């Protein structure tokens, strides 16, 4: 148990008053940026990165990773109470979290979200602890065909397992894929769909689209009804927490499945967004009562949150072990490592043991402290709701604009956000699902690049997607999921 000894050493490095104080500061800042729609994890961490330059690397990474935990926790608050996902991967949390809040079960939903974040992260941290030293070789098995297979799996699970009218899902997904392609095509170096505009050159940023689709459109929808806040108040009492925790064992399959999906997609790296959607869809698929999803079922909160956070945490593993950031936030942390003079890669584990194990230990401590902190401070953050909507609405609009602008420092993105706000409003009202659109917008480019690199590598031979057992099994699974409704029907008839 070499890892265990090293971990204890990590805790020893960590347990000083200064480090603990940094953790608290980081967590509070993190929850704050997580709650603000559109600011979120990657941006929050990026914005706060310069604060750490004068610190020693261990303190710096502890503070940054705590900001990250805080943002992860904070993202759930706005998703559940306001139906505004603070983070892209909280989108799936809104599906059942918001209905729960509407039914007056906001505290349960929040407790479920925080608890499952905690469980997801914990599983991933355990995985990192024991896998870190040996992960390098596995992650290296992923070439373009394997990456493409994973993306395909994500898309197929969406179409195959989705419940909306198929043509509307198709419209939504193809539109997302098309918009993802705007800008420069990496493989050929050619511009496409930019129509000579230098604003379209950089492409359509996914976060900007999300802020518009979910933030602005929700404000418009809310206005249609009474000018009352559609958010929900929640103060979490110990009783609620305990009652949710008591029920936890009932959902162990969901929790375990989502943790597994999350860790897998975090390492591979398919990302937390894909993980949260897959976690949600699979929970729905395997549920005895899939119809109750989307109407405020607690499992619909457990599944995506566990998966997203397992994935977000697991994404740090390839970042540390290989220098491949598995997520946007991991990419920012990677930049941080280099500023502090550390080179990520397999050797990091040999040369900077203090740093690596200090970080891993801080993941454990940060999670525990974060869970307690977030459970006790929700009333403070929820108190935003006591402000009249006529004051909150313009403030949300301003926060959205700040978020949209800060991503690329572009005024054009504020207009884009407004445009997506209108699109989101209309789509929601005529029943075109937005989730496939956002998923396609995020993964579209990467999937296309992976496909085309596979083709260049194989000389145009599609058999490359079955060229070894790893890629073959993922591709086959993807196709099975795509045709799942048909397969299910046939299977029922035979049995």
């Amino acid at each position: 148990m070499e890892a265990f000894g090293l971990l204890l050493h990590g805790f020893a490095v960590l347990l000083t008053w200064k480090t603990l104080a940094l953790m608290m500061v980081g967590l509070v800042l993190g929850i704050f940026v997580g709650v603000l729609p559109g600011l979120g994890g990657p941006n929050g961490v990026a914005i706060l990165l310069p604060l750490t330059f004068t610190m020693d690397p261990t303190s710096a990474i502890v503070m940054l990773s705590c900001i990250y935990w805080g943002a992860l926790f904070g993202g759930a608050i706005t998703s559940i109470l306001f139906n505004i996902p603070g983070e892209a991967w909280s989108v799936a949390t809104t599906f059942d979290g918001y209905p729960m809040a509407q039914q007056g079960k906001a505290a349960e939903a929040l407790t479920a979200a925080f608890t499952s974040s905690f469980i997801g992260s914990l599983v991933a941290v355990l995985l990192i602890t024991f896998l870190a030293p040996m992960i390098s070789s596995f992650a290296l098995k992923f070439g373009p065909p394997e990456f493409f297979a994973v993306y395909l799996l994500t898309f197929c699970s969406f179409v195959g397992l989705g419940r909306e009218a198929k043509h509307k899902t198709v419209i939504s997904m193809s539109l997302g894929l098309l918009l993802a392609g705007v800008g420069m095509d990496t493989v050929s170096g050619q511009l496409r769909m930019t129509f000579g505009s230098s604003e379209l050159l950089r492409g359509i940023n996914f976060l900007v689209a999300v802020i518009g689709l979910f933030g602005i459109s929700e404000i418009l929808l809310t206005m249609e009804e009474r000018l009352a806040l559609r958010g929900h108040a929640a103060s979490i009492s110990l009783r609620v927490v305990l009652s949710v925790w008591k029920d936890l064992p009932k959902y162990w399959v969901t929790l375990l499945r989502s943790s597994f999906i999350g860790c897998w997609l975090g390492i591979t790296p398919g990302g937390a967004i894909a993980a949260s959607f897959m976690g949600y869809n699979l929970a729905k698929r395997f549920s005895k009562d899939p119809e109750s999803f989307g109407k405020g079922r607690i499992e619909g909160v457990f599944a995506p949150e566990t998966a997203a956070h397992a994935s977000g945490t697991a994404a740090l593993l390839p970042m540390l072990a290989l220098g491949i950031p598995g997520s946007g936030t991991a990419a920012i942390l990677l930049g941080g490592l280099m500023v502090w003079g550390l080179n990520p890669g397999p050797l990091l584990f040999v040369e900077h043991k203090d740093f690596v194990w200090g970080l891993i230990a801080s993941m454990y401590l940060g999670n525990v402290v974060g869970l307690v902190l977030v459970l006790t401070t929700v009333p403070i953050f929820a108190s935003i709701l006591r402000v009249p909507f006529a004051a909150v609405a313009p403030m949300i609009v301003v926060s959205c604009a700040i978020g949209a602008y800060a991503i690329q420092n572009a005024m054009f993105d504020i207009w884009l956000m407004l445009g997506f706000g209108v699109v989101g409003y209309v789509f929601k009202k005529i029943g075109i699902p937005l989730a496939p659109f956002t998923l396609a917008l995020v993964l579209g480019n990467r999937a296309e690049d992976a496909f085309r690199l596979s083709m260049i590598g194989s000389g145009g031979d599609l058999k490359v997607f079955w060229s070894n057992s790893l890629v073959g099994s993922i591709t086959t699974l993807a196709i099975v999921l795509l045709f799942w409704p048909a397969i299910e029907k046939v299977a029922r008839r035979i049995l």
Partner: protein
Amino acid sequence: MALLLSAPAFAGWEPAKPVEIVVAAGAGGASDQMARMMQAAIQKNNLMKQPIVVSLKGGASGAEALMYMKSGEGDPNKVLIAYSLIYMLPLSAKIPFNWRELTPVSVIALDQFVLWDNSAGPKTVKEFVAAAKAASAPFKMGGTGSKREDHVLTVFLEQKTGAKFSYLPYKSGGEAATQLVGNHTESNVNNPSENLEVWRAGQVRPLCVFDKERIAYTSKVTDTQSWADIPTCKEEGVDVQYLMLRAMFLPGKVTPEQQAFYVELFHKVTQTAEYKDYMEKQALKPIFLTGKDMVQFLEEDDATNKSLMTEAGFVAK
């Protein structure tokens, strides 16, 4: 207080707002790392009163950053950390950009290119070329971006050796490095910094460096080798040379005082321990050019790149 006291006294203009270092690449890439090194060097040594922020504009393979600088005419609070894309992108993608519209500040480093293969692959350039020629499917060459420096080098390697390569354009040098380690490609032409870690871990092997002379750094990087131990490609019989500039630019139409401030600032940066340490760690060639020298260098470099791009057939019609 310490900050106020030690802040250097400049006679002329000084930024009144936070200064943005514009990076024409994604997070974690060589430009980003360099920008963050400079940010740290400036902040730690109090070289400037205003804070400095790194802003990543890697969209459209860096074209985003170029258009951003172009539109920032007259704004002295944006500095671009440029590399060969300033010559190549306008040619390959017909981006309406010309580096002459920006204000040159200084060239701060030159970056090398090295031919790498997997440590399980051929051990010398000759064996590598022979294996590439003998292979039934063309060898896969990883690189960053399409119709850019890595791609150009691949085309020239093909011309000089007669071997065929399939060029795989990845999004970053880091990705190209791990894909080589994972045996998904047979080789890449990464900058030293991009392959440093995997080299130290013994997973890749440097075959030759695309320069007239060997890299100067002689301290050991791996157990047995230093940067200086890598032969030049010419020594190994493949006469291909390419160096890439790392230079700072301001937007167009800034005042001479503003330009002078930044020339001075980056000159000071090149004197810091952070810069020197970074140069050695990443095996960059130190250089400091400014004023007329810099413009002359840029013109020559532009001509070289243009002829390479034309020969490789990468200029869009």
